[in-house]
């Protein structure tokens, strides 16, 4: 007689934001085997980038891969295309791009924290964090002119400049947010339903993080010191106060704290950018046709985003390879599930901050 039972989670489940299906092989309440199906929202973006759109338009296509990290997708593609055109942006453009990416990181991390709170049964905190997140959404809307699809970065620069009123708004909202994050850190540390619930649950060990190539907050919570911001030289992150945030326990609590402390660090970075914004043009001419192969890595809120772009001097590109953070984190995720209780699965999943529309592209 079979001793295990199979319990599915998804593809539609109350705790899931996006369609993903896990098949858990359970022994009583304990999960001993996992199988994942992630391709529910495949749209063929890679194919569209090489068949239907010219290289100047692809930046707007890849932004539609994912709503939350729209800016990082466009940025990675734009950097790759600029590399192929032999163009390097000036400092003002670099700083404005960094500003948007860091704002994006803040609101993406807040969304994830809200959902981990919700999955601990703390609905009120979910509402509160989502409300506070509006501060950042407001800033992004004011800078780019749109709430979700920013379309802010284009080849050769950025589309809009930062006026003094905008800087004042950013300063004000970041100040308000910094206070709220301080309270949140206290809450996540001391509130029983968050700290007791999440300590020691869903542990990824450092060994496993190396073996399964974990990345982003998932790896940093396990103590694996990897952050693309420190491993690439496309942006001057060290100049503006970037610090790598590391935790050691690798459980959900540690992941929450990596995110919270990264928000604090990102607020710091945003403030430094606004105070030290260099002068210069925001749009420059990047002429020519993309020729050759370029590889770009950018730290998206969920981890490393990788683009490989190949062109052969034509308007159409030969290949656009998109490797998204959740896609590479899935083997590590499946490892974390093994050995935990079935009842914890939604909370563990939320703490990974999975993005299925990125994964399936």
């Amino acid at each position, binding site marked *: 007689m079979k001793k295990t039972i199979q319990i599915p989670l998804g593809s539609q489940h109350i705790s899931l934001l996006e369609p993903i299906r896990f098949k858990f092989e359970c022994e009583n309440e304990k999960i001993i085997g996992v199988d994942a199906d992630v391709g529910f929202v495949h749209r063929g973006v890679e194919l569209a980038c090489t068949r239907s*759109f010219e290289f*100047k*338009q692809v930046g*707007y*296509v890849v932004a539609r891969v994912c709503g939350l990290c729209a800016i990082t997708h466009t940025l990675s593609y734009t950097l790759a295309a600029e590399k192929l055109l032999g163009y390097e942006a000036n400092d003002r453009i670099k700083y404005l791009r960094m500003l948007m990416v860091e704002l994006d990181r803040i609101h993406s991390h807040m969304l994830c924290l809200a959902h981990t709170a919700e999955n601990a049964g703390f609905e*009120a905190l979910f509402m509160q964090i989502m*409300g506070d997140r509006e501060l950042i959404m*407001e800033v992004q*809307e*004011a800078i*780019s*002119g*749109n709430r979700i*699809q920013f*379309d802010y970065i*284009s080849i050769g620069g950025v*589309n*809009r400049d930062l006026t003094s009123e905008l800087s004042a708004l950013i300063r004000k909202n970041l100040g308000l947010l910094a206070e709220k994050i301080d309270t949140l850190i*206290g*809450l996540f540390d*001391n*509130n*029983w339903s968050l700290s007791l619930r999440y300590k020691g649950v869903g542990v990824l060990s450092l060994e496993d993080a190396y073996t399964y190539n974990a990345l982003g907050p998932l790896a940093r919570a396990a103590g694996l010191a990897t952050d693309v911001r420190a491993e690439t030289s496309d942006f001057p992150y060290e100049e503006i106060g970037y610090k790598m945030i590391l935790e050691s326990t690798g459980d959900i609590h540690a992941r929450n704290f990596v995110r919270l402390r990264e928000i604090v660090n990102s607020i710091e970075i945003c403030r430094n950018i606004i105070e030290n914004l260099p002068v210069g043009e925001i*749009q420059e001419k990047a002429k020519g046709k993309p020729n050759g192969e370029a590889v770009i890595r950018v730290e998206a809120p969920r981890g490393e985003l990788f683009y490989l772009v190949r062109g052969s001097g034509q308007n159409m590109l030969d290949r656009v390879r998109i490797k998204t953070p959740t896609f590479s984190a899935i083997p590590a995720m499946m490892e974390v599930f093994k050995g935990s209780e079935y009842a914890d699965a939604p909370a563990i999943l939320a703490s990974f901050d999975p993005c299925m529309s990125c994964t399936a592209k």
Partner: protein
Amino acid sequence: MFSSMLEAFLNLFRPIRTLQYPAEEIILPSGYRGLIEHDHEACIYCDKCEKVCPPGAILFFQHEAGEKEYRYNPWLCIYCGECVRACPKPEEALRQSEKKQLSAVAADGANEQWFVWEDACRQSREAYTAAKKSAKIQSKSEE
């Protein structure tokens, strides 16, 4: 722990944080990316906006007499503003307003009618270039 319980209790007496939408109006920030507006008088019909538009929401219909007609689909547009940046006379011929487009209803024919237009625009151009070519050949043979 107890501070968060107190906080939750105090929330009962705090004002509502959400916007009561149909009753209250949403205030869009200045610089909101809205509808693309075209000026027939100022436009020089260079077709640059049509070429750069990522979703293909701007099309030009070619009339037989030579003039072109601007056609725009606000439901296909992604409001990126690439057309305005490509325009040789921005703010005059083509500008991005702060107006918001309402959702399409069936009568707008946002999908089917646009496909018909797309075909019509392509055919009008092909017919126009073919007519031009044959006119050229004719004038040459007359010489």
